[in-house]
């Protein structure tokens, strides 16, 4: 698949943003996304190729304008639904519950 992820050789994406003091995770939601995907792999819940595909089917403009773990978040939700772990309705209901509790 030659989608937006296939950036090798592309021009015009600008300078590299280097932060030598960057922590491993910048916030808790990054930890939650990383640990969920990591355990998808470790638990055999989804093959890594499915994970890549789930990132590659992101909206191209969003792919280029969002940070790395936002890509993983999309895969986290897509894989949970496609592999029958959760339904979208369940997730929506839980979001609503958390929003009201907040």
């Amino acid at each position, binding site marked *: 698949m030659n989608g937006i992820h296939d950036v090798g050789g592309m021009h015009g994406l600008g300078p590299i*943003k280097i932060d030598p003091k960057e922590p*491993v995770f910048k916030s808790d939601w990054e930890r939650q996304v990383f*640990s969920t995907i990591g355990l998808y792999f470790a638990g055999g819940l989804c093959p890594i190729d499915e994970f890549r595909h789930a990132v590659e089917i992101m909206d191209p403009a969003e792919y280029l304008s969002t940070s790395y773990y936002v890509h993983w978040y999309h895969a986290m939700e897509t894989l949970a639904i496609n592999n029958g772990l959760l339904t979208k309705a369940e997730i929506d209901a839980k979001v609503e519950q958390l929003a009201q509790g907040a």
Partner: protein
Amino acid sequence: MQDADEKTVPPSPPTLRIKAIQSLLIEKGILDPAAVDEIIDVFEHRLGPKNGAAVIARAWSDPDFKTRLLDDATTTIHEMGFTGMEGAHLHVAENTPVVHNLVVCTLCSCYPWPVLGLPPSWFKAPQYRSRAVIDPLSVLTEFGVDIADDVEIRVWDSNAEIRYIVLPQRPAGTENMSESELASLVTRDSMIGTALLAPVSEASTGESA
């Protein structure tokens, strides 16, 4: 079903959705909360470039090890106990006075987790990934690395199976250093190829010898 009293301003959807998904997976017993904490701790605190630095320092200290490392990095690195996710197949590319190696993953973020930990954001961002393969010299310049005109630059584009690690040149002035002293000199970026290791001055060699 739409609630008539639905809030008109939704609160921060991605962050809440992430929390919602992980909470549901835990409630259903699909994810073990102890495993969640463990995997975060491993990657945040225990795995990191120090593993790779130990490999490099041994290669500098032990010619037989270096030969085996360049011949079969997977077996040689696994024998040091550095195994696990994203480290099944490894290859080490040696820097020499006439060759400089640079590692990228143009398609995503492939990286040897057991050897280097998780990659920095710039390694995963489109700016580095796009340019490393078409204009590596300007990439190296942005990292402050100056490569002489007569040095060949080899770019290794990682893939789903094989992960690459650069064996940097041993810095001048380290002849009397122990393996652990050498390991302390090896930086993450030097093993990706976006940094060179500076020579060690006489004074610091004397102190550590």
